[in-house]
């Protein structure tokens, strides 16, 4: 007679466990492969969704913001002297202050963008506050020659490198903006920073405001105060960005153009909307397939061993002994499958990280006159997909097969072990 049962603990027999994992290679390969496939697809889809979300934020995050605000206005009557493009009508100081107190807004940077048709030339000029944490002030990281503007600079300018090269300008040279002479103190490669609100020349905000406020071409159609601006770059709490954008639109009225990462999603048009919906559908299908395949496979693996379970019962294994052993075996299948799936998914994600998507920048956000060469050309911000595995990604990819598989094994083995031993032994 063998030992008494009182106080006996449930045990996993390692030898039996290993022999089942290694002795039934086809079954092990199918189980592990199936879990690996599900995990890999889940990892890829989740990482792809995250990468696309990140990509849509890039054009705005380039300039340190997640909301930009502009106002639509009338088209200048004459292209002479400084004028405001129709997409950047004035935003009054009062309006800016009202926006600044909306809860969730962390920082607001103001700028003035204008076209200058003085002296038979054309140049795009942006007035910036050099100490700002967002907006064109971030050009300080893109200075290629000379230096960045400072608040104390008077009649100094930064020139965009490509434009300056074409115009034959260098640091120390003088340019005229709104009829006034400015000295170039530095060259900046704006394309490294942003595609939004880019210009040929950058000057201090106060000087830009003064030029625009005094310009007859502006005064004809706008009332521009000395403290007004026409571009706002807002840093807001990410999860509140859309709600804040809606409030700003409410404040400024129908002519307000408020851009958020969602605006870029919409700009990508039907193709990406479809892709996104499709990705949602794929995720749902993968989840459904995961439920179907893993649960069917786990249940089939238990059914396949029904007679073996009958033998276990006949030789004195209790229901709990059997379930514990089967649970352990399936845990190993799922654990190994999950590891393989994470590896596969990571490799696939790495391959996808070489893919770039081109996010169109609307003309309104980087206005160039249509009559100039390249003025109608669509600007794009090319973004590499950042396939970053987050904890959420890993957890969701691992938990789905684990919960599904173990729940099915538990349920299938429970129903079999509850049958009378003779029924299980007779099972065909």
């Amino acid at each position, binding site marked *: *007679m*063998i*030992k008494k*049962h009182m106080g*006996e*603990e*449930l*045990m996993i*027999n390692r*030898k*039996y466990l290993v*022999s*089942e994992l*290694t*002795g*039934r290679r086809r079954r092990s390969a199918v189980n592990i492969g199936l879990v690996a496939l599900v995990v890999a697809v889940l990892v890829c889809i989740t990482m792809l969704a995250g990468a696309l979300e990140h990509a849509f934020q890039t054009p705005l995050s380039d300039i340190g913001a997640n909301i930009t605000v502009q106002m639509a206005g009338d088209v200048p009557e004459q292209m002479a002297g400084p004028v405001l493009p129709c997409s950047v009508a004035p935003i009054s100081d009062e309006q800016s202050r009202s926006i600044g107190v909306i809860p969730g807004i962390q920082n607001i940077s103001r700028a003035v963008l204008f076209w200058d048709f003085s002296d038979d030339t054309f140049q795009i000029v942006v007035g910036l506050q050099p100490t700002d944490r967002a907006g064109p002030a971030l050009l300080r990281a893109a200075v290629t020659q000379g230096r960045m503007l400072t608040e104390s600079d008077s009649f100094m300018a930064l020139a965009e490198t490509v434009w300056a090269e074409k115009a034959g300008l260098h640091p120390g040279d003088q340019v005229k903006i709104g009829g006034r002479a400015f000295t170039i103190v530095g060259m900046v490669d704006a394309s490294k920073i942003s595609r939004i609100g880019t210009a040929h020349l950058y000057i201090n905000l106060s000087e830009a405001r003064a030029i625009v406020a005094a310009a007859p071409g502006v005064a004809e159609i706008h009332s521009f105060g000395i403290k007004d601006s026409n571009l706002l770059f807002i840093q807001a709490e990410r999860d509140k960005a859309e709600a804040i954008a809606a409030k700003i639109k409410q404040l400024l009225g129908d002519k307000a153009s408020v851009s958020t990462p969602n605006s870029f999603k919409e700009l990508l048009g039907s193709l990406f909307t479809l892709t996104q919906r499709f990705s949602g559908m794929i995720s749902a299908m993968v989840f459904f397939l995961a439920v179907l395949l893993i649960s069917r496979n786990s249940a089939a693996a238990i059914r396949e061993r029904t*007679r*073996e379970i*009958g*033998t*276990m*019962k*006949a*030789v*004195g*294994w*209790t*229901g*709990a*002994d059997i379930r514990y052993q089967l649970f352990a075996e399936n845990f190993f299948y799922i654990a190994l499958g999950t590891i393989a799936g994470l590896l596969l998914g990571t490799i696939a994600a790495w391959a996808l990280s070489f893919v770039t998507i081109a996010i169109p920048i609307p003309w309104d956000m980087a206005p160039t006159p249509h009559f100039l060469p390249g003025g109608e050309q669509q600007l794009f911000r090319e973004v590499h997909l950042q396939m970053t595995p987050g904890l959420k990604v890993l957890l969701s990819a691992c938990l789905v097969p684990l919960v599904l598989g173990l729940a099915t094994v538990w349920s299938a083995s429970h129903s079999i*072990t*509850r049958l*009378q*031993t*003779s*029924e299980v*032994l007779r099972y065909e």
Partner: protein
Amino acid sequence: MNENRINDAIAVQNVSKHFATVSPVRDVSFQVTAGEFITLLGPSGSGKSTLLGLVAGLEKPSEGSIRLQGREITECSEDELALLRRDFVGFVFQAFHLIPTLSALENVSFPLYPVQMETKERQERAMALLEKVGLADRAEHLPSRLSGGERQRVAIARALVNEPAILYCDEPTGNLDSATGREILTLLSTLNQDREVTLFMVTHDRDIAKLSHRSLFMHDGEVTES
């Protein structure tokens, strides 16, 4: 001598088993004394295997009482029956029912897996039984590499590993050639004599019955005694 043996190893009283349309066992009563070798004879479909399942606690009767080693098994749960089998019962099946992924040695020690016991002790006990059935040199072989007779010997060793008081055999030679079958019967008979294990064997072979102490005949679900 097995210390768990009591006078009546098996006591069956007015046992019937009904399925939806048939009653393979009808009002059966008999006793098996400890150490007896009993054969249950009858044609195919007479209800022998069902009766074996009932007296071994593999299934429950629709009516009647079955006492195994003095314990009323009709009142036991599935888990209680499993533990009762672990303690008192060994099985030898016609189809062997060995675990294909385990070696002969591991198959023999299989009933002891859920028992808290040192691996060494378990293996020593299994190895001793393999030696007893003449398969010590095949201990590491998988069932697929053993002949039918060898598989049945492994199954017999497995049935004895828990030192049972009662050994149930369901057509143990049914899948074997006659020479191997004789060897297996000799082995079982010796075990009955040497270890005083109660042997309850289902067979349709009258020659086998001659080796036993007593035979029960089954016909249309009813049992008569020789």
